């Protein structure tokens, strides 16, 4: 019972504490740089999604179709509209330099925990020589290499419109419905010898 009262008291502390005191306490503690980087990335993702939705509202809607032409023309129209809405987009606009560092560390840590065979498996069938640039259409004749499932669980979750992809040694943020490269974080996947 005493423990319960203590927990309750602690949980109410921020509410009971005068605003000035809370501010002083927050000023004393430096912000967690990783948390800040992740939050910044999430904000930029949210911004992109706003733009994606704006673009989607300007092109014909396709839910289900028996005609592959409809799918292709919708995908192309959506991609073209997104490009128009962010004509000056450049690398790390969404990832951000600080989150790129977080991403690189997380991927490296994940790779170091894998066996040589497993690392090789991740790199298998990678389009190693594929040229990448922001706003390019992901070529449909190149495989979309499976993203390592365990690593995916450690990264900030993305809305369904976006996904992470490994292309060579780089990580790409890909717009799924527009089949568009939204951002590129280069040289993230370590070149670890067998």
């Amino acid at each position, binding site marked *: 019972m005493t423990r319960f009262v203590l927990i309750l008291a602690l949980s109410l502390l921020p509410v009971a504490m005068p605003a000035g005191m809370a501010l002083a306490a927050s000023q004393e503690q430096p912000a967690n740089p990783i948390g800040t980087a992740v939050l910044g990335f999430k904000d930029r993702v949210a911004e992109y999604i706003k733009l994606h939705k704006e673009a989607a509202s300007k092109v014909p809607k396709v*839910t*289900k179709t028996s005609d*592959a032409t409809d*799918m292709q023309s919708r995908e192309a129209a959506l991609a073209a509209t997104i490009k128009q809405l962010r004509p000056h987009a450049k690398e790390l606009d969404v990832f951000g330099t600080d989150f790129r560092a977080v991403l690189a560390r997380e991927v490296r840590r994940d790779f170091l925990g894998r066996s040589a065979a497993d690392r090789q498996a991740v790199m298998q069938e990678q389009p190693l020589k594929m040229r990448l640039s922001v706003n390019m259409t992901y070529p*449909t004749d190149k495989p*979309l290499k499976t993203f390592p499932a365990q690593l995916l669980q450690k990264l900030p979750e993305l809305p369904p419109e976006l996904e992470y992809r490994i292309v060579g040694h780089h990580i790409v943020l890909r717009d*799924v*419905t527009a089949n568009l490269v939204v951002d590129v974080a280069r040289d993230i996947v370590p070149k670890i010898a067998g």
Partner: protein
Amino acid sequence: MSTCLHRSSRWPALLLALFLGALPLVAPPAPMLARAAAIQAAAPAGAAGGTLAPRAEKSVRFAVIGDSGTGDKPQYQVGERLAESRSVFPFEFVLMLGDNIYGGERPEDFEKKFERPYKALLDLKIPFYASLGNHDDPNQRFYKPFNMDGKRFYTFEKDDVRFFALDSNYMDQAQVEWVEKELSASKNTWKIAYFHHPLYSSGARHGSEVDLRELLEPLFLKYGVSVVFSGHEHFYERLKPQNGITYITNGGAAKLREGNIRVGSEMTAKGFDTDRSYMLVEIDDKTMHFQALSRTGELVDSGSVEAVKAPPRPPSDGAVR
């Protein structure tokens, strides 16, 4: 252990011929009788002649193809065999294990790599239920003939069988949560999952997807998944049950990675890696009968599997126990 039925030596074929020659001397087992009757009744000679007829009058029957979308001759030949098999084994739908459209995904590719090879079945309104492979644009989910309802992962039910089509290319937290929610909600006797990447495989090229296995298998065990179909490896491999689950890799409906099953793999119950293949499956009450056939219509593997019982669930009355 037989990792391959017709692999390096002619002896197995000779022994098989001798065995078949001696058949009239022994009482044929029931499936063989069914097969013989079916062949007499319906199968065109020299076509999918190895096809076994269904056991039950009323059962859930389906075909399974994987890694099919090349648009080349072997895909068309398998398509023809599938249609021929249907005259003996009238399956009602087809599961696709991913890599549905290789290479370009222009409208003409959908025609060349899907609509034409399976025209006979599509004309009969046989539905295909696709899952996504690493060569597939996720926007295939909007292609109506794939019956994905605009979703990368989805579930559907046929009688007492619930199918879970997963996207193993991108197993994010949202999908893992969805899998658990849907599996836990299913009261079906049969829970069958299918997706592109095999959790267990003796393939020399790819092998088991350990990463994915660590995420999915605990859920399959917890909620009583009986059978898992996968592709990605371009051959047929039925694995010895792993933790009570039957895993079958069936990724050779158009592509072939000849001789790629590791010889001596302890996981293999039956393997076939010398030609393309497809499967026919029947679920009758608590038993699943399966058969794998080659591009030439030869029976490569057959057998049956019993549904696993889901472990008892913890009581949901809120009581702490």
